[in-house]
């Protein structure tokens, strides 16, 4: 599969390296060239030598998305540090580029839930943390 990851923070970089290790084609788009280092460190060797792609650009730039390979992407992951950026760019990936599988990381549980109802596949780390904390707390009693 061709996986395109927008935003290589802790989450994005980790998912990107796992996908590359699993033998998928992986392309990463991030506005910060430093995030490239995170990929190297995460992987333990050079991202490019391992076959990864990296494009510098912001999520809403059509040119950058195209350069990163959005036209061929099978999976699109929006994992920048901004909920709004993730929600907008994932809808662009869905509606304009018709990427088959689009996933957006959204920290705000309410927006994550509402956009999920609208057909955007959202992952909400906050909601997961809330559920795990509640579970852990209740088990401790």
């Amino acid at each position: 599969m061709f996986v395109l990851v927008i935003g290589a923070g802790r989450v994005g970089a980790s998912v990107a390296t796992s996908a590359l290790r699993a033998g998928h084609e992986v392309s990463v788009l991030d506005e910060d060239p430093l995030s490239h280092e995170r990929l190297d460190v995460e992987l333990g060797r050079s991202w490019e030598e391992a076959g990864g792609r990296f494009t510098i650009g912001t999520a809403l730039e059509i040119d950058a998305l195209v350069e990163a390979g959005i036209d061929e992407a099978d999976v699109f992951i929006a994992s920048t540090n901004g909920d709004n950026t993730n929600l907008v760019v994932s809808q662009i990936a869905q509606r304009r580029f018709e990427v088959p599988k689009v996933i957006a990381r959204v920290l705000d549980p309410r927006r994550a839930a509402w956009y999920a109802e609208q057909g955007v596949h959202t992952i909400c780390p906050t909601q997961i943390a809330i559920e795990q904390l509640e579970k852990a707390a209740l088990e401790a009693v």
Partner: protein
Amino acid sequence: MAGTGLYVIIAGAGKVGWNLARELLEKGHEVTVIEQDRRRYLTVEQELEHAVQYGDATELWVLERAGIQRADLVVAVTGDDEDNILICQVAKEKYLCERIIARCNNPRNLVHFKLLGIQPAVSATDLILRLIEHEVPRYGLVHLLDLPEERLEIIELVVGEDSAAAGRRVADVTLPEGALVISVLRDGAGFVPTSDTVVEAGDEVLVVLDPGLEEDITGWFVSNGRRG
């Protein structure tokens, strides 16, 4: 509240949002401005008082606290295009607000606003660009108004020295169906022509037309026109 007044929520208390709020309040409308920067909020609050609220307008509870359920109009004018898109999208699709207006900071993002149905989106940069093109017209043709939804546009053309239209009555300038000369600007004054008005070289004419007819129309007005 005045019977005819609107309830307007403005996201972003920058220069645009603040001035807009001031004008709307003066016209008797009810306004709530939402600003997420604490310092900016405190500055604006000194003047607008209870008409400004502190918070992130992309958060649903902040919009609800501002009373989005009863808003007649939501205007998103933050400095961030993603935020403006999101605010308008939830206003329209979640809270069923009938009218939205979005500010587009980077004109390259206009396609995204359009794709997600966020209309109208206003871009100051784009407006200034059009004005510059108006001052320095290329090929003598300026787009004054584009209404793609209504499939209508208005263009301005300068009548070329030896063009086909120069010296002819408006009735004899047989533009294609779907195009009409609606105004002539001559010596600094504009008037609505009749079919007997004679078009002169140097006139600026405004033509209303269906999109796609520009080429057929410019042929009449450029110098050494094909029809001349």
